[in-house]
């Protein structure tokens, strides 16, 4: 039986990777992918904790399913935004898109 701490460490590592990617990647698509990583890190900790804690009514698992569903919707919307960005700026590099500054 793999102890809970291992799941959580993996989840934390995954979240940190996602966070790092989201903060450092220039490509908007890559940022989206990094965000997915962070979501999945959260899913992992949900499921792990649900399994670990006694007498739960599958709330953790259900949450994970919700997150996946919402992540799909989020990806659709985000990709539409990225597409819109590309149409207007001919690029998807977020460091080149800074019109909304002071």
């Amino acid at each position, binding site marked *: 039986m793999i102890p809970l701490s291992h799941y959580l460490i993996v989840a934390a590592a995954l979240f940190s990777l996602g*966070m790092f990617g*989201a*903060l*450092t990647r220039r490509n908007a698509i890559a*940022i989206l992918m990094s965000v997915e990583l962070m979501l999945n890190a959260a899913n992992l900790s949900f499921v792990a904790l649900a399994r670990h804690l006694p007498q739960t009514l599958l709330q953790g698992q259900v949450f994970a399913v919700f997150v996946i569903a919402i992540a799909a919707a989020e990806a659709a919307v985000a990709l539409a935004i990225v597409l819109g960005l590309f149409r207007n700026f001919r690029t998807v590099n*977020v*460091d080149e*898109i*800074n*019109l*909304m*500054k*002071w």
Partner: protein
Amino acid sequence: MLKLVWLVPALPLLGVAVNGIFGRVTRERAHWLGVGTTGLSFLIALAIFCQAAGGARLDWDVYTWMSAGDFRATVGFLVDPLSAVMMLVVTFVGLLIHVYSVGYMHGDPGYARFFTYLNLFMSSMLVLVLANNYLLMFLGWEGVGLCSYLLIGFWYQKPAAADAGKKAFVVNRIGDAGFLLGLFLIWRTFESLHYGQVFSQVETYRLVLERPSVLGLSLVTWIALLLFVGATGKSAQLPLYVWLPDAMEGPTPVSALIHAATMVTAGVYMVARSAAFFNLAPVAMGTVAWVGAITAVFAATIALVQTDIKRVVAYSTISQLGYMFLGCGVGAYASAVFHLATHAFFKALLFLGSGSVIHALSGEQDIRKMGQLKARLPITSRTFYWASLANAGIIPLAGFWSKDEILAGAFAGHHYVLWALGSAGAFMTAFYMFRLYYTVFEGKDNVDPHTAHHIHESPPAMAYPLMALGAGTLLVGALFGFPPDHGLYHRFVGPVFAAAGTEPHAIGLGTTVGLAAVATLIAALGIWGLARSWYKTGDSPAPARAAERFRGLYRLLLNKYWVDEYYNALFIDFGKRLCHRLWGVDARGVDGAVNGTGWLTVALSALSARVDFHGVDGLVNAIADLIQDGSQAVKRIQTGLIQNYLLAMAMGVFVIVSLYVFF
């Protein structure tokens, strides 16, 4: 019929209304109405005069003019012998002068205006003589003063004429103030200004009237003296005569009508009308007599040397008015008014004759540039000759009868000094009239060659009035004045003054004839004894020699005793200086206060603006600036780079979680 008297002053007023309002339309036809209304007035006046002569009298209050408390003034007319005579003289002479004006003023741009003023004058003068109370008389009195001003300044483009008009008006105001004070005093004493009510109460109030009041003079003396002050202004007596010679700047018909025949006699009429007061006031009587006599001599001396044809006649007018006041002053009111009437004829004639000469010589008024006009102006010279004889007092012309009566009145009243003064004046009158006549119509021909060939006798409109007045001058005196003091005129007018308490002077037939002989002798001496030999040929050296010998006196007379200069120095300069001083007070004090207030307001406003600008606006701006500067400082965090925001968010979460975990 007698009540038609209101039409006499009203008809000329109709002319005023039409010519005054529609003068631009009537233009050269202005005289139709101007002369027409005056003519009708004259006819009505003649009819009323005839009735009055038959014994009819009228004292008629037409309506109440104004009332305030106890005071009630009416518009009303009085027809008695005195006003009837005045009315007839005014309308008759006025009518002739209107006709004369048609010729004299022909082609003048102000033709309609001239007739408007002339009619207004007629109306005012008739109100003056026909009024049955003092207030209405005062209305007419002021009206004629106004017309006099308007007509003297008729050629207002000429500065001398405009100034003369102003002078006449101002000097008259001084007299009018006295008249008005007199009226106040009458009202206070009798509570009425109506002649009938006032004069009928004089006996009742006699004790009050004769009681000494201010300065030891009785009340009635004050009334009489104040009225006389008014008379000296209007009738050009010392010391207020100065306006009359200057009034000659007006058109000549005006000089004849207003400044010789009618208006200037208003003072005499007023004194005669107020005889009831004067008879109770010996001091006032003496003042009137002496002022009259001195004026008569004073003006006559000036007339001796003047060289302007109209001014000689003007000074003669002042002198003759002096005789009228002398007559009033010695109680010979009827004779004074008779002299007024005869004087109206011959003095109007002299002025119209002068006008005719001036007209013929294209405006020349200097008698040194005239001469030998007798043949060229036959009608003018003949009528002028008669008028000069009448003015000099040669029997049987108009002036003789009346002037002789005045002097006889003075003699009979034992005023021998006054009589002597009057006789001396009569000698000078005879002399200066014939100096004028001989110099202008005979003597040497000094006419400017340029004007000489323009000389022509005046047109009929001017010649006929001359002849009519000439006939009057010849006949009126003898017709109504013979025998002296008992003629038609005296039987008609005498009772008016007898009713006012005038004591008749008993004078023997021998004295009458003697005085008449002396007067005629004096006049004849002046004419044929002196003037003829000095001026008839025009080359006698005697006048120049006399002028040389009495050079100081000559210059004194030529400069009219420097009276105008004295008045200038005494009153006008004083007034000017006073005004200047007051102006200084006004400019510095009153204006200073106003300007100071203004300045203070401006200064306070500036201060307030500063407070507003720096304080209030400053506060608002400071807040705005603060916000702006603060925004400047922090706006840089708004980089527009999405990852910066993400970082901030992550760090925020980190901080919050850290806080949650560790505390």
